[in-house]
């Protein structure tokens, strides 16, 4: 199996062949022609949209028309812009805190490898906590500040950055490590001089993906009794059948997310080195220790993590002196699910909801992954496709799912299909970004070899780029698993009124706090299991195509 068994992603400056899919030699069309084509296309799309909105969809209040949206924005410019400013500020603060936490944790993990599993597991648990349930609880904690918005934004982003960053900090040739070691330098020097460089593209990918996620977190936070912001405005627009207003708000927040995304992408292009280097690392024996010791270590690690999470739960609540009326402790949950005489009924209720949610989350997740992978592949093969679809893909992800979920569900029918589409939209994008970045990880020297033999692009893709992309794809697939459940619960909460999302919302609305906390625990465990399943598949595949990721 060619180069892929010994290569894996890493970039280094100074190589020569073009890694970027942009092909030289083709004379570009004049600028104005492209611009004209784009403008004409936009006019046609807007015209069709306007006509559809005024005819087929008239009176349904599902689709705003361009003219109506523009009018709304003109009428409410000041209100909308202020709302945008509040939400953007909260999202930006959350983005900052969340990503700072990700970097700190990633550095910690690399400096003290012994902590890695534990830290990542606990970080994962925090990421898996359902936003729907967290919102009202954070509001109880913070009062009427913008704390919930910022915290939810931070939680929504930190894991998206942490995972690729940890991958990136490891994505470097063993020889580099040997080099710093032979100079007698420690982990810190290695980190600063070698690992940070290698991790930069991965970090930037995480930072890109987390821009829209921060926005989503801030919006969910605004649903918990905020005074201002886009979330507040969209609740009102939704309930007053102000379809044009709702679309105007969605488009404005999409634009802001796009701007943020564009800014981070621009920075990423500036500071990341162009060319990945060959990563030589031995495949090594498949397992160094006997199966059962690894298994025992895994179970032990999981137990330690559980103990830490439960301990943290109890201590944090005690330290904050939270009222046991709403802040249930692990033993309340244990009672509810296991010990009490009604436990079986409680379990039935929760597991029925789990079933409903998984029935939409799994197909949506699969569709999202395939879509992300497919788009990334198409982008890498054709520049035209990439240029045309990139803004659409980014816009889709940047559209605030909170506003769009009810519309999608209303438009696509109240069945599982609508929710599955929401899930797919929320999961495809991180996969796309990650895969695109992964596809570019084909080392220059390997590209040169392909070029020497004038290998057709499709073959390069199959034999070179896709294997080189594997670590990036799997890190995206892992993160996407909890995201899919998050997306499904948000859609259920806001639109369909089924599954776990609805159960948590109803529990919160009717003060069934023990049930709420038990559901939170179950949702978190289900997310963790989903993550673990993807991880097992990942380890199998990466052992072949990217052994440095599994090296331990």
């Amino acid at each position: 199996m060619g180069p892929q068994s010994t290569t894996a992603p890493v970039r280094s400056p100074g190589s020569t062949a073009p890694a970027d899919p942009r092909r030289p030699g083709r004379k570009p069309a004049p600028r104005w022609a492209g611009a004209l084509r784009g403008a004409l296309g936009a006019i046609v799309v807007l015209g069709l949209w306007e006509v559809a909105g005024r005819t087929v969809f008239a009176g349904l209040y599902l689709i705003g028309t361009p003219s109506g949206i523009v009018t709304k924005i003109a009428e409410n410019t000041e209100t909308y812009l202020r709302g945008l400013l509040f939400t953007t500020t909260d999202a930006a603060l959350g983005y900052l805190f969340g990503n700072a936490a990700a970097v700190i944790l990633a550095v910690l993990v690399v400096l003290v490898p012994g902590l890695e599993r534990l830290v990542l597991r606990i970080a994962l648990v925090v990421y898996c906590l359902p936003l729907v349930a967290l919102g009202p609880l954070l509001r109880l904690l913070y009062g009427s500040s913008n704390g919930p918005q910022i915290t939810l934004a931070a939680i929504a982003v930190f894991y998206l950055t942490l995972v690729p960053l940890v991958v990136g900090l490891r994505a470097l040739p063993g020889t580099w490590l040997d080099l710093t070691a032979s100079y007698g330098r420690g982990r810190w020097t290695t980190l600063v001089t070698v690992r940070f460089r290698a991790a930069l593209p991965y970090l930037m990918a995480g930072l890109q993906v987390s821009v829209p996620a921060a926005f989503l977190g801030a919006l969910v936070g605004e649903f918990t009794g905020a005074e201002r912001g886009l979330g507040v405005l969209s609740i009102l627009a939704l309930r007053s059948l102000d379809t044009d207003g709702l679309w105007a708000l969605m488009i404005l927040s999409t634009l802001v997310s796009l701007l943020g995304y564009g800014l981070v992408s621009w920075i990423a292009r500036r500071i990341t080195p162009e060319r990945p280097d060959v990563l030589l690392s031995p495949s090594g024996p498949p397992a160094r220790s006997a199966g059962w010791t690894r298994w025992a270590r895994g179970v032990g690690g999981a137990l330690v993590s559980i103990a830490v999470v439960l301990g943290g739960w109890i201590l944090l609540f005690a330290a904050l002196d939270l009222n046991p009326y709403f802040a249930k402790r692990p033993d309340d949950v244990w009672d509810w699910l296991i010990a009490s005489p009604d436990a079986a009924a409680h379990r039935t209720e929760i597991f029925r909801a789990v079933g409903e949610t998984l029935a939409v989350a799994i197909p949506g997740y699969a569709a999202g992954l395939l879509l992300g992978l497919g788009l990334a592949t198409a982008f890498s093969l054709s520049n035209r496709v990439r240029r045309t679809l990139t803004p659409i893909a980014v816009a889709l992800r940047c559209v605030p799912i909170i506003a769009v979920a009810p519309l999608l569900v209303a438009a696509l029918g109240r069945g599982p299909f609508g929710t599955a589409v929401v899930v797919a939209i929320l999961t495809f994008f991180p996969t796309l970004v990650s895969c695109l970045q992964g596809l570019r990880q084909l080392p220059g020297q390997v590209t040169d070899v392909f070029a020497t033999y004038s290998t057709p692009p499709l073959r390069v893709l199959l034999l070179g780029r896709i294997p080189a992309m594997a670590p990036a794809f799997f890190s995206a697939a892992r993160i996407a698993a909890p995201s899919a459940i998050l997306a499904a619960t948000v859609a259920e909460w806001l639109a369909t009124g089924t599954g776990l999302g609805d159960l948590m919302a109803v529990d919160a609305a009717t003060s069934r706090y023990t049930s709420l906390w038990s559901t939170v625990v179950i949702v978190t465990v289900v997310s963790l299991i989903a993550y673990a399943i993807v991880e097992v598949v990942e380890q199998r595949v990466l052992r072949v195509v990217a052994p440095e990721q599994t090296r331990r």
Partner: protein
Amino acid sequence: MSTGRLTRRRLLGAVGLSAGAAGLGGLSACSRDAGGSQGITDVTYQLSWTHSVQFGGTYLAEDAGFFGDQGLSVTLAAGGPNVAGDTNTVSGQSLINISGGDGVARSNAEGADLVIVGAQYQRAANTILSLGDAPIQSPEDLVGTQVGVAGPNVPALDAFLDINGIAKDDVEYVPSQYDPATLTAGQVDSLFCFYNDLPVALRVQGVEAYSMLLADFGYNPMSQVYTVLRESLEDEETRDAILRLIRGDAQGWQLYQRDPGAAADLVVDLYPDAGLDLETQREQAEVQLDIMYSEATEESGFGWFTDEQVQESLELFELLGIEGATEQMWDRSILEEIYADGPTA
């Protein structure tokens, strides 16, 4: 007691902001802020939904200085789709909150000890909204149709059908939230919602619709109730603050009754960031007069409730499957004190 706790929580929140946002725990610092230095008591009043003319009288009270006259500095906390109002009162975040009678009973069934001390609505606002060309005008019209209903309202719809002798199997419940587009897009025949909310929105948008108040067909739980902790009533100072708050609030609602339009203008002015539409607010301000004022309020004062209403509520709770509620959940003594000299606060 509860006011002191309130400030501590807020302070804690501020500390938690930095630590919590970084994803790390370790919040410990907290201090007690002595509220009410110059005889002014700081209180938080938790509303049941986002700011709108639904709380018009309260804004008028604040604007006219009625709360100030009572020696209160009132923070009005917005509600929303993801806000647990009762819990805010239980946890001490707010001194008082606006809730639903059945919601309070549910909270108490879960271990809270909340007491209803007044009711802003004389008739419950729950309504079944349908489009004008296929109106649902009586419970019988529901047979064989699809009703969009949000999870928390399912027991209410169950009880309503039960009261009107309609088998649950004859009506199809479609799980949904309060999105009026599901109705206009024809996905449901009717929507379980609130009298002064979606029906007004539809009217302002020019959509012909029919709104059937459940209260006209035997389902009339107390709604928009003033809810406080029992321990707040037992503490003399806190009880006094509650009394002054409700007195100021009722004065505001008396103003409102005379000029609801002024409340609409005020709320649009006060909350420019809520995106409120003046026309809709005016319409809503008019509409809710219906359910907030009645002969009973003329006779006994705004927010009044009777022993019959209490009994009716208790019977309803049984239908709703809420256990453990008794007359102890209501306390009229505050209203009685406010209206000791007649129906004017």
